[in-house]
């Protein structure tokens, strides 16, 4: 269940295809791509800070939790750090299971946990200066459904 935390861009299509072809016995592969959003239309860039060492450890623990809960054949998490432009891919998650319900649920679970349990912090640089993105109560609340 590979976990990659990297500054470099990744090729979502190639990663998804390689993941799907490597997931032997899977009846379902679910992928999610997170993209830098520019709600105000003035975002110059986003910078993602992380905690080297803890980041990989936290994501590995989250994927282990997901595979204890659903029968996953494989899972992949790629998360970038450093400066990113609007429209660029921030992260992706992929899950493979025998049936789609498990693959979807596990991907959803991984996303909820990555949002508020993986040590990343986003800072937005726009027309009005720079500001750290605040964690939303709804992100924390989302964990209670699991």
């Amino acid at each position, binding site marked *: 269940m590979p976990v990659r935390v990297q500054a470099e861009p990744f090729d979502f299509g190639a990663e998804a295809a390689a993941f799907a072809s490597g997931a032997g016995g899977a009846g379902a592969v679910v992928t999610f791509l*997170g993209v830098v959003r520019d709600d105000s239309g003035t975002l110059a860039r986003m910078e993602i*800070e992380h*905690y080297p*060492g*803890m980041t990989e*450890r*936290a994501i590995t623990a989250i994927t282990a939790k997901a595979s204890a809960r659903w029968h996953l054949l494989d899972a992949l998490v790629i*998360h970038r750090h450093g400066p990113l432009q609007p429209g660029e891919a*921030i*992260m992706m998650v992929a899950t493979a299971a025998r049936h789609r319900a498990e693959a979807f649920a596990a991907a959803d679970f991984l*996303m909820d946990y*990555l*949002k*508020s*349990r*993986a*040590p*990343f*912090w*986003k*800072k937005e640089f726009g027309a009005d200066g720079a500001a*750290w*993105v*605040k*964690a939303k109560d709804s*992100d*924390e609340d989302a964990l209670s459904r699991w």
Partner: protein
Amino acid sequence: MDVLYFAWVRERIGQPKERVETEATTVADLVAELVLREERYAAAFADTSALRVALDQELAEFSAPLVGVREVAFFPPMTGG
């Protein structure tokens, strides 16, 4: 022990990492000790309910003991994904 700061906590403290010699027995004691040192610590730790702490890279509570801990990290709630 090594004390690490991330995101706006790092910006308020003015450095990402430092070595702290302390007799503090819990995270809360360590915070109280740092706050007394300089204004920048008081500014960073003004509201600990807005902060998270990790001990040796595992999330912990502010009431957690520091016995045997080598690395303490303070940061705001995480915003991954």
